[in-house]
């Protein structure tokens, strides 16, 4: 009797334990160490309260390391991650490979129609939404209102490149360590080439024509690079060929830049608590040259679920929570409207509370003025504003980025750099089978 009771008890205990283990799902989320992503990790109490059966493990990495790890994982079918943080460059390529799960079946209240059309379009392949945008960004001009005023200039809301050059010349003051303009110079497809490719669109340049022939030998690219080098050499900071987003942000926050053209998400940082110029920053659209295209890009850090994940349902639950309207409201409640992840939902920009945020309108206008399917003046065979959504672009962009970075460091002339880029890209496109 005694023994059988114990056996019965034991069986009950082990049964409940097994039941608990079954209900408990652990998902691994790989993410980039951006402010918005770190903030989400601080708000997980809300998710845990709503979904006690799902445990979320975070892998937070620096952007380059993250991309290296998740690409290796997904391409080799590693299955280490259940949710990936990837960008608008990866989504179309990976979606086409069948590496990602379609998110078309997210619940109706998630409201896919509320997504900004430009962003949604960049994440959709053949009618399937392969990633949910967490935040979207474009690029714009951030400038110092006080320095502009001192120079007797005003920044138009939609400046031309000539306006930018004039302002840079007027604000540069080497003795006070103030550089008229800070731009990306660090080599990398996501660093200087993101900026330069977007800039080249406003000069009417393109990476490839419709037959995938590289276009670096065309006058449009020469005009782009000449303008960039001249601007940076005359009014840029020293050592600019090593400056990426982070370096420029630090310089701007220290008051060492008159202007900075970069990601719209930087707006909340340059007006935030780590900035010494927080109350002196103005915003304007990225410049143009009167050709109908502006030099701004379009990017969205998005959450995607690899097909190899064995916790699809839990992963979808998490993606739904993290990219929902409720999440935006949650951030607003806890951290204020200025810290809400921007650039993904129309409803956010219709919210009168959010419209009070100083950079809200400029961000929306910037995002709306970029078109990944027709990035530049002439027709192109590719998708992407500041990148070309083909698998080869990471390598190509990095190599060309190095060449242009060397030109900025004064090791090459613009003509040499462009000739080198043209040869290199042509060779690689042949090797990759685009050009016969």
């Amino acid at each position: 009797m005694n023994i059988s009771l114990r056996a019965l008890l034991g069986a009950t205990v082990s049964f409940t334990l097994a039941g608990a283990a079954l209900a408990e799902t652990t998902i691994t989320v790989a993410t980039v160490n951006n402010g918005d992503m770190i903030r989400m990790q601080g708000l997980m109490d809300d998710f845990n309260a709503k979904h006690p059966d799902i445990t979320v493990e975070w892998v937070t990495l620096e952007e380059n390391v993250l991309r290296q790890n998740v690409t290796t994982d997904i391409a080799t079918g590693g299955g280490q991650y259940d949710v990936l943080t990837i960008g608008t460059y990866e989504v179309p390529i990976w979606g086409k490979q069948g590496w990602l799960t379609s998110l078309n079946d997210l619940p109706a209240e998630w409201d896919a129609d509320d997504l900004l059309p430009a962003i949604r379009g960049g994440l959709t392949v053949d009618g399937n939404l392969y990633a949910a945008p967490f935040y979207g960004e474009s690029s714009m001009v951030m400038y110092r209102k006080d320095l502009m005023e001192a120079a007797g200039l005003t920044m138009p809301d939609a400046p031309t490149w000539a306006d930018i050059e004039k302002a840079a010349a007027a604000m540069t003051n080497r003795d006070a360590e103030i550089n008229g303009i800070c731009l990306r110079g660090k080599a990398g497809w996501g660093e200087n080439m993101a900026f330069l490719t977007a800039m080249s669109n406003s000069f009417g340049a393109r990476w490839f024509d419709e037959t995938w022939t590289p276009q670096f030998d065309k006058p449009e690219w020469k005009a782009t690079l000449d303008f960039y080098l001249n601007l940076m050499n005359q009014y840029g900071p020293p050592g600019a060929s090593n400056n990426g987003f982070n370096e420029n942000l630090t310089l701007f926050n220290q008051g060492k830049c008159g202007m900075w053209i970069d990601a719209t998400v930087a707006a909340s940082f340059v007006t935030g608590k780590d900035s010494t110029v927080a109350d002196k920053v103005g915003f304007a659209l990225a410049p143009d040259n009167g050709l109908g295209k502006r030099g701004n890009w379009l990017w969205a850090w998005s959450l995607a679920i690899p097909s190899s994940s064995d916790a699809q349902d839990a992963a979808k639950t998490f993606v739904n929570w993290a990219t929902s309207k409720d999440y935006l409201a949650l951030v607003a409640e806890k951290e204020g409207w200025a810290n809400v992840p921007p650039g993904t939902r129309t409803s956010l920009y219709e919210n009168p509370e959010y419209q009070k945020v100083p950079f809200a309108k400029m961000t929306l206008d910037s995002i709306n003025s970029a078109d990944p399917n027709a990035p530049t003046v002439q027709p192109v065979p590719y998708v992407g504003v500041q990148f070309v959504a083909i698998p080869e672009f990471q390598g190509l962009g990095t190599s060309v980025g190095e060449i242009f970075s060397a030109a900025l460091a004064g090791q090459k002339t613009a003509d040499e750099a462009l000739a080198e880029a043209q040869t290199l890209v042509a060779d690689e496109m042949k090797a990759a089978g685009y050009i016969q």
Partner: protein
Amino acid sequence: MSTQSSRLAARVMVAPSVVLLFIWMAVPLAMTLYYSFRLYRLLSPDRTGWVGFTNYLWFFNSPDFWLALWNTLALVGGVLVITVVLGILIALLIDQPVKGQGMLRILVIAPFFVMPPVAASIWENLFMHPQNGLFAAIARGFGAQPILFLEEYPLLSVIGIVSWEWLPFAALILLTSLQSLSSEQLEAAEMDGASALSRLRYIILPHMTRAITVVILIQTIFLLGIFGEIFTTTQGGPGSASTTLPYMIFKQAIAAKDIGRAAAGGIIAVILANIVAYFLMRGIGRHLDA
């Protein structure tokens, strides 16, 4: 004392190490060799096949290849010269009867405990940065223009950083060797009127030959594969001014996701390492009766 049975026992004892290391070397090497003749791009899994020597030819035809080769050797050579010369000087200095020798050793050994990515980021951000770095602040204090270390002297800057990391290792091995030198010998030479320089030349340096050999050998093995410090600081640039062979391979593997090319680069690097090892053993191997 090596009887038949102890020979057998010795073999049995060495076997696990040898077998494990052989697998550890042979399997990845075989896979790398295989991939080096294949078209294998991570992001284009549908395009595969044998490509002969195409991947190897890509390296040889790349305008960066010979520069990268030269940079690799310059990096290894530069760091070796700096660490050995400074290491000897530091060893000589610390070996003197100075106050607080224990504390001195603690300070000198510190860089060796610093993780390479941390070391690189300290130097890049806190020291060499053209606007926020300490060096720039010092230059401005003297009214001079800050030096653009990573832009104008990228390879030298990397050599400097790596030398700092490895200096303690060299200095400590050399110091241990120096401390085993009998003081009678030196005193006798001093009595005979030998100058400090000739004592160094004829007694101290010959005594340290073995230690120097060891430092060179071990450091070469580690230095040939260095790329983390380059990745953190210059990213091989500007242009390809500080690109080494491992970094070139890294770019093919990580940026271009071209595993075939990266594998071919790996095989080339192994061949290079063997050539270096050959000359190393011919040059200094006799000092090493291991």
